[in-house]
């Protein structure tokens, strides 16, 4: 199961179309996602940073507080320019800028993160 945390419905629809082969659970805000992750550990999280309510950083911090969630790979897709190095400590595997992301690159990254999680990497 991939948890998508994205408050823009246009982007959410886009993910649903691009990742139609995967089992997705979409959230419009970080709080609802964190509450859901309290009971369910996703295989992967795709996270926007500027969200309605708590930001993506709050979600990352919350995930780091729980051992099971700290291991979950995260892919950040945001309009805010950030480096992977900055976010590596939060378990972030890849960072994409919404402005120049290629759909194929996101698909590859999702596949790699899921395989890595399955192999315990």
């Amino acid at each position, binding site marked *: 199961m991939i948890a998508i945390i994205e*408050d*823009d*419905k*246009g*982007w959410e*629809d*886009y993910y649903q*179309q*691009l990742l139609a082969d995967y089992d997705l659970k979409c959230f419009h805000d970080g709080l609802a996602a964190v509450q859901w992750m309290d009971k369910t550990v996703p295989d992967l999280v795709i996270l926007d940073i*500027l*969200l*309605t*309510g*708590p*930001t993506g950083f709050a979600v990352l911090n919350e995930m780091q507080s729980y051992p099971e969630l700290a291991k979950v790979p995260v892919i950040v897709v945001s*309009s*805010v320019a950030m480096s992977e190095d900055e976010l590596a400590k939060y378990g972030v595997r890849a960072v994409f*800028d*919404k*402005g120049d*992301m*290629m*759909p194929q690159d996101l698909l590859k990254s999702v596949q790699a993160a899921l395989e890595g999680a399955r192999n315990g990497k």
Partner: protein
Amino acid sequence: MESEVFSANSSTVVVAHELKAPLSLMRQLALSLELERDIDRAHQISEKIVVTSDRAIRQVNDLTKIARLDEALFEMEPVNPRMVCDDVVNELWRLFRFNHRELRLEYRNKKRLVVGNRQLLYSVVYNFCLNAMNYGGEELPSIVSISDKYGTKIRIAVRDFGPAIPTKIWREIKDGFVKQPVDIAMRPGSSGLGLYIAAKFTNYMQGDFGLIRHRDGTSFYIDLPVSGQLSLV
């Protein structure tokens, strides 16, 4: 100077960020269109590109209008608010549908005209509706309403059923008006660009801009003076 939006660095960043969202989405949709083999789905994607670009173009147009408010090119005239609201809803219903939202009209005043500028009033209502679309929930529709206010004014309001505005931000809007778009101008995560535009245009038309904080959402409104001229519609 009204064009402060372009002079302050922080505002420019906020505006740029807000405009980047539809542009980057259009780019992704165009890329996915290249890969799409199903004609129906390709048609849906191309329709999404059109409505997303319409929205971005309107924002740019509104920002251009703000820069030109000083030139007093927007004359005050009798305006039928119902026709303006009908036009906005006609333009936005598809975008609402794409976002799994609904927009409804409730007119308690059908005949009276207001003193304002049609273009600017259109932008105000349009931006209120966009704000409602972004923050309203999927379960209940956003509602555009027109009603009498004190007999001398007409209130045009857009009600959403989304998360309530935090008290601090509510006070800022009530007390300080909207001077510039800031990171959390209206609600967390929002640049408030649309509401900033609406506030500027309302101020130009000498109307009152405000909000009502409900337990289950927010209404943004503009009050404009009633025109002595009767509507022929």
